[in-house]
């Protein structure tokens, strides 16, 4: 056995009453790939966040070479040689490739930014990930697969000894993924310890030396990955998870409530038509830039469409003005809660009643008692956990804030909900509650459009899933008729990506 470079000892992490991770012990050994698999919400992200210093454990410890290490911030972990490669947010898109790699160290070791010396240094790190692109190239238009490689090069330049890859292949084509695997193999031979988070069992078979299965925040089993097959892993992974997270879907009625015809927003999407019936949840899948978020905004009236029409129960929704759409019953849950939904100076009560304030008013005067009752009703209906209706909204957990945002459109009387990533940044418990809530609303006759990049969410909660690719609807799947892999594949661009090795100079 080789030595453990880093690891977790008996780590527990709670978010309120939800236990995200419980008593997890795990070793990362020199020159080995340790794969961690588990369903969404099994605790994989929490594990990554603790090891990379984003979160601190409530109990237990992170260890470095056998000794306890305290990371107060991601920078601490990075300094200790633990680098994390996230799916998308690794690079500063305004900077060049070289500047990204050497970011934060321009002034010390390499005095002049963008000199030949810096370029050469960047190039040597790029070579280590077998990338021969120009370090002066801007990062913004680099394909995601290459950005990931640049991020790894950056980690190597930081003398990383532990590399955490968080679902690195989620948006890669087969060839790109194969290229990444080869690189991971190479890094292992150099002695790096690699924590590989995935939910694709194929990759475990291909790459891993050791495998850990997480379920509901607990470590189910750690075993050698040799010869492990799907039939061994899947029973360990699944179980009550999906059943627990996703409620049974109600049968939709025949009445079409939301009707969109030939919608277009120039530069984003075109020729999109869709019908949503009462009681139906329709999912919209697509990669970043597929136009799915823009479609949600246009449907909800938050952005002015270039052409096409939207009707709610036969009544046309004018292109301008989300306030008018709201009055027809269209409610919008924006994707960025912090920037687009939460008013930090507001109390929970005022946050809930903001959109439907007209109902609690009399000639422009707010009837405080009625308002409080309305907010209380929503609080009870959605089980919003707050110590008081008068508590500032920002004191609530992400999940409860999101319930407030949902409650806001419900209090305004919306029964056509356009939700864009409604469970982003929401802990497992609240996530399940939001799923149950959406299903309940559908059962009561509401129509829901669910835009999401969480495949399981779309598969578990939607009657139908439309797939958007490069601004067009390219596929439609019914509930239970599509595997996660098929769903992901449908979203990927059709034209062949250029292989990294052939890129650049």
């Amino acid at each position, binding site marked *: 056995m080789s030595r453990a470079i880093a690891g977790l000892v008996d780590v527990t992490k709670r978010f*309120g009453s939800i236990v995200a991770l419980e008593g997890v012990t795990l070793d990362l050994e020199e020159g080995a790939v340790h794969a961690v698999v588990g369903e969404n919400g099994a605790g994989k992200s929490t594990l990554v966040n603790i090891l990379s210093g984003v979160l*601190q454990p409530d109990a237990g410890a992170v260890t470095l070479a056998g000794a306890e290490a305290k990371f107060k911030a991601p920078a601490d972990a990075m300094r200790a040689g633990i680098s994390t490669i996230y799916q998308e947010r690794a690079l500063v898109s305004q900077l060049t490739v070289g500047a990204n790699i050497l970011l934060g160290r321009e002034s010390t070791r390499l005095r002049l930014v963008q000199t030949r010396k810096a370029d050469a240094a960047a190039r040597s790190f790029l070579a280590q990930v077998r990338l021969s692109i120009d370090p002066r190239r801007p990062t913004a238009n680099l394909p995601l697969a290459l950005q990931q490689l640049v991020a790894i090069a950056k980690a190597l330049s930081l003398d990383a000894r532990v590399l955490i890859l968080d679902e690195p292949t989620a948006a890669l084509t087969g060839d790109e993924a194969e290229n990444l695997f080869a690189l991971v193999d190479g890094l292992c031979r150099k002695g790096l310890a690699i924590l590989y988070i995935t939910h694709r069992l194929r990759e475990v078979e291909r790459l891993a030396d050791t495998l850990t299965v997480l379920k509901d925040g607990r470590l189910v089993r750690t075993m050698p990955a040799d010869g492990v097959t799907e039939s061994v892993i899947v029973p360990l992974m699944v179980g009550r998870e999906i059943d627990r997270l996703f409620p049974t879907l109600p049968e939709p009625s025949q009445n079409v409530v939301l009707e969109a015809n030939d919608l277009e927003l120039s530069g984003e999407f075109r020729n999109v038509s869709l019908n949503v019936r009462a009681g139906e949840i329709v999912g919209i899948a697509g990669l970043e830039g597929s136009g799915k978020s823009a479609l949600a905004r246009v449907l909800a009236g938050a952005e002015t469409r270039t052409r096409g029409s939207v009707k709610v129960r036969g009544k046309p929704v004018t292109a301008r003005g989300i306030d008018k759409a709201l009055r027809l019953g269209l409610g919008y849950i924006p994707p960025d809660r912090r920037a687009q939904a*939460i008013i930090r*100076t507001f109390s929970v009560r005022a946050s809930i009643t*903001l959109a439907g304030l007209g109902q609690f008013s009399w000639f422009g005067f*707010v009837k405080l008692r009625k308002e409080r009752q309305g907010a209380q009703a929503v609080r009870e209906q959605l089980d919003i956990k707050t110590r008081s209706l008068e508590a500032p909204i920002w*004191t609530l957990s992400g999940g409860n804030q999101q319930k407030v945002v949902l409650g806001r459109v419900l209090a305004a009387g919306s029964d056509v909900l356009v939700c864009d990533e409604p469970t982003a*940044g929401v802990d497992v418990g609240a996530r399940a509650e939001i799923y149950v809530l959406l299903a309940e609303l559908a059962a009561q006759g509401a129509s829901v459009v669910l835009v999401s990049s969480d495949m399981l969410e779309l598969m578990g909660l939607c009657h139908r899933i439309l797939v958007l690719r490069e601004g067009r609807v390219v596929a439609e799947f019914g509930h239970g008729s599509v595997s996660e892999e098929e769903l992901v594949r449908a979203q990927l661009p059709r034209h062949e990506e250029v292989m990294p090795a052939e890129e650049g100079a």
Partner: protein
Amino acid sequence: MTSEIPDGGVRAADSHAPSEGERPRRDWSRASRVLLSQEAVLFLIVLALAVAFGLYESVFWSGVNLQNVSRQGAVLTMVAVGSIFPILIGGIDLSVGGQVSMLSIFAVQLSHNMPIPAAFLLVISAGICIGLVNGLLVTYGRISPIIATLGTWQMMVGFTLWYTKGLPVRNFSDAYRWLGAENVWFLPAATVLAIGVVLVAWILLNRTRFGRYVYALGGNFEAARLSGVRTTFVTIAAYVTCAIFTSIGAITLSSRVGSGLPGLGGGLEIQAIAAVFIGGVAWGGGAGSVIGAALGVALVTVLGNGLDLAAVSSDVQTMITGFLVVLAVGINARRRSASGV
């Protein structure tokens, strides 16, 4: 514990507060803390200043002087209370001084040609028009509030000078000067009107949909818009509200001096804005109260009066006011970041 965990974690832990029994007490202590750190502190400072000035110069507490102080503060209160509306939505109205100058002349001119109440109503209507112009420039014109209102301020000052050739217009009739000179029982009429203005503004901000939307816009414009708040309407309405209160201030001031003067409102916008920020209203909007703004005016006015009595030059007073603005905004920024807002 809370400061260490970024984002979601903290709040989860926070919202599942310890035990049932502790909750009401925590609420209460939090409420008392907020009260103590805001209006109450300001009120105590004003009171302390008044006591100190009284000890130094016993004239301060004389009835005549107190009437003077409150009369002086009345106009500034009206303008400051108006100014908080644009500031709360995240804008600002720098044109209030120009409004006062121009409207004071309108008031006098009109009062010569019609019954005084009718003249005052017309002045307020003119104020509404000015507010509309400001609001339209900021919304449909997409001009930043500072630039837009700086522009309208200059236009009004220029117009006023051109129209009057720099000379004052006068109406010394008792009827015209009643508001500025007379008392209702023992309180100056202007003070009573100022109290009324504060009351109306308080109701607008705390008891109406408009007020809620004003805070929403300043707190997070995009979130307000996506919640169906008609942001354009609310913005325009905020500038109109400001102009209405300012025109009432213009009438009061003009009545007090019995004149309309091109320079009557000079510097008033700076004083009003200073008072508003001393009163704890946040730059960028979203937080602040009418009571705070009024107390800010009280502080500035009492300080001015006391220093006058102590024969401190007005230049030094200006310096002190400037220092107080910086201090107050600094303290507020610190407190807000401490409370996480």
